[in-house]
């Protein structure tokens, strides 16, 4: 884009008048190694809009941030003049328990939202996959965990959104009712867009009741065929599982777990049938430690971090994916929602570069043969440079056209997303 960028004195003044808190960046403000020019901490949607108008006026690039727990995900931005940190916008604006909805600011932490809702016996069906994650960051990365089998993902829960465009215009879509087909569903477009289309400042979600009883049943599994068979039995059973998870470490015991929720009597009965289905060794266990967490250590930002992968496939592809894991050149630990075909894998830090590349290629091919994809969620810079982070993407031209309409100067999180968007 032929737009002059630069964070000169006038630009800084414009940003300072747009927002009370404009600060110099520190070490923890790096976006996957890229040092932002300044950090703006707006307190309201209107301040976010002012900041974005100031940035637009001076041709500045903008990277949005919630709690900052996933800033190394995706590709590093090509530029980050202004880091727009919305963590000060952390209020639960309205919890209408009788309507099963909650209206929150984007910087609100998921755990605090859940705590708020729990008082009314309700929950937002989104797992906190990284401790401290915000609502906005969870939306931007489309993060999901074990309960996606029951409640779906952000796209199934978000019913209204307020956003600020690259040009500073504030807009909303959806509303406060679950059933609503008026206008385009912009929320879905923003989910998983890594901050490249707009800055989300507020979100309305549908909620679910917290079940009176819940129990995990876990069973050890041997090989890929064994795991595949058990998962098929659970998924097609009448047990109505809330989650079907696998923990498949590079070494050590492998476990398939199922979560059953509902009324005490009902859960009891379904636990019995799940145990029978899982066979010898199945036991009712506390929440497995592997649930709703990634198989890698989160919170690392340097070259000491592992290569983190997301694998998707149709559920009949599980055996093939697990077999590919076993045949990979690198040791691979895998975990996730085998009930939906979305799992996460770790290639440990220190693995030989060629082995990382060939492992990614092999696993990506296995996913692709099963209608899915592999995305390198996070990795040290050297790995990101040597592999195709996002992999092949369908309808990329249409995605570029959407990006260009929302952000014609390509100033929002430039380069972080698919196809260099």
């Amino acid at each position, binding site marked *: 884009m032929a737009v002059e960028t630069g964070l000169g004195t006038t630009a800084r003044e414009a940003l300072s008048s747009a927002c009370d808190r404009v600060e110099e960046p520190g070490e923890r403000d790096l976006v996957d190694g890229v040092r932002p020019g300044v950090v703006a901490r707006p307190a309201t949607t209107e301040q976010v809009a002012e900041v974005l*108008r100031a940035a637009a006026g*001076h041709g500045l690039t903008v990277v949005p941030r919630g709690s900052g727990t996933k800033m190394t995900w995706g590709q590093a931005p090509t530029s980050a003049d202004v880091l727009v940190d919305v963590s000060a916008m952390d209020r639960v604006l309205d919890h209408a328990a009788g309507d099963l909805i909650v209206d929150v600011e984007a910087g609100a932490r998921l755990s605090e939202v859940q705590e708020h809702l729990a008082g009314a016996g309700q929950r937002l069906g989104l797992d906190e996959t990284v401790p401290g994650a915000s609502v906005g960051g969870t939306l931007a990365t489309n993060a999901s965990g074990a309960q996606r089998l029951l409640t779906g993902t952000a796209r199934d829960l978000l019913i209204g959104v307020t956003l600020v465009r690259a040009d500073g215009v504030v807009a909303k879509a959806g509303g406060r009712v679950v059933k609503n*087909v008026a206008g385009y569903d912009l929320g879905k477009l923003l989910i998983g867009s890594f901050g490249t289309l707009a800055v989300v400042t507020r979100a309305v979600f549908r909620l679910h009741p917290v079940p009176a009883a819940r129990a995990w049943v876990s069973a050890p599994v041997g090989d890929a065929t064994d795991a595949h068979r058990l998962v098929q039995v659970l998924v097609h059973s009448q047990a109505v599982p809330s989650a079907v998870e696998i923990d498949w470490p590079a070494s050590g015991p492998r476990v398939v777990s199922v979560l059953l929720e509902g009324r005490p009597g009902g859960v009891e009965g379904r636990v019995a049938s799940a145990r029978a289905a899982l066979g010898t060794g199945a036991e009712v266990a506390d929440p497995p430690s592997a649930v709703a967490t990634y198989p890698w250590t989160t919170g690392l930002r340097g070259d000491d971090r592992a290569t983190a992968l997301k694998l*998707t496939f149709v559920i009949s592809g599980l055996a093939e994916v697990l077999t590919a894991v076993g045949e990979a050149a690198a040791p691979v630990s895998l975990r996730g929602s085998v009930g939906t075909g979305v799992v996460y894998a770790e290639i440990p830090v220190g693995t030989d570069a060629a082995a990382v590349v060939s492992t990614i290629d092999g696993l990506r091919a296995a996913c692709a043969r099963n209608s899915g994809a592999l995305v390198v969620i996070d990795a040290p810079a050297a790995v990101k440079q040597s592999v195709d982070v996002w992999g092949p993407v369908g309808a990329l031209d249409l995605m570029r056209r959407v990006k260009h309409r929302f952000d*014609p100067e390509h100033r929002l999180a430039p380069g972080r997303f698919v196809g260099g968007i």
Partner: protein
Amino acid sequence: MTGNSAGLAAVARRAAELLAVGDVITDRARLRTYECDGLAHYRVTPALVVLPQSAAQLAGVVRACAENDVPFVARGSGTGLSGGALPHADGVLIVTSQMRAILGVDPEDQRAVVEPGVINLDVTRAATPHGYYYAPDPSSQQICSIGGNVAENSGGAHCLKYGFTTNHVLGADFVTPQGDVVPLGGAAPDAPGYDLLGAVVGSEGTLGIVTSATLRLVRLPQEVRTILVGFASTDQAGSATSAIIAAGIVPAAIEMMDALAIEAAEAAVRCNYPAGAGAVLVIELDGATVDVVAEYDDVVRLCAENGSFEQRVATDPAERALIWKGRKSAFAAVGRISPDYLVQDGVIPRTSLPEVLRAIQELSRESGVRVANVFHAGDGNLHPLVLFDDAIAGAGDAAEKVSGAILDLCIQHGGSITGEHGVGMDKSAYMPRMFTEEDLDTMQLVRCAFDPDNISNPGKIFPTPRLCGEVPGRHQGAHPLQEAGMAEVF
């Protein structure tokens, strides 16, 4: 808009080359059979109708439209209730009813792949032998098509628990308004990139046309119980609904009918609903047997606590069909008690039900226009049927006025102007009451990305089309001419 007769002639020639002889309609009398969808008071005769039998034929026609700047409108079974498939007088109506193949049913992966003309209920019929079904169930499911469902993001009685079409469409082959075929989403979840499919589902045919859809199949529940409950008033029935939800129960459906709607249903289908009821609820519970049995006891108790005077339970399909008969026939049944009627589709937060119903009664009393209420109580989706006799001068206008006032009530209570029927032609004028100019402008950025020439179902949803050549507003420091020139360059 003046007719582009040369462009239309070119599209007709191309269609004749691509399609079988009987699949291109130019005869005036036959064109007229397509002049409206389920919202029959809007009528426009299309300039040309095509009935492609394949995605390649359909894409070829769209490409010809793009090359000749001719607008097109997609239509499935034509059952829509907002005029979304209303033809364009100078455009092509692309009817997908001949694309009716179920391309695959894969219970192992809980998926089905179907062409857009496939009838909603046929997906369930194909999946049932495997223990699965397709959850979205609009009332018209025996005749409406998946393509139309995708365009409108159709709901139905059971979306309270299972969600809408958008939650059950995982992938699609999609023809852009330029005539290119691209894949959106896929059989596996979370395809990388923007969720374009999420934007396309419910976009009412304004972004392009889906030529195949990958659908999620849901396990048939072990147990289903349907309960018919009679109350003295809609207030009581509304309170019972709130109590059930507050107890943490998510029924598959909670439907309400008021006295006038019950009267109409009795006249039409003799459903034998509780005599003297001011309101009935139809509540359906499904899931594992042990859970359903426990929930049933709670629901019965909560209804009794809120004043129910009669309860009947159906545990087998025949009894269940009897209970649903009254509810599902309600729209048509209103024809028995009124020569004409308007159907509304507003949504309110569930907790506002009693207040809004009283306000509707007040509107009805003040205006002398009768309103029968049939609705999805569980999710606050109202279908007030505003009754009138078109033979009486001014009656239609009075009904329209009441109908509009009901939508205003929904907006005032933080709801929506449409829960499942779509905006289409019918409600585009109401969009500015729900959304700001900026909201609508931002939505139209999506439109401009997909369809910069505004040829895909133009004139629907948005009251004022956005000129896509314009540089999106208000930013400074850029060169407008350069940007305008760059608009389609990557």
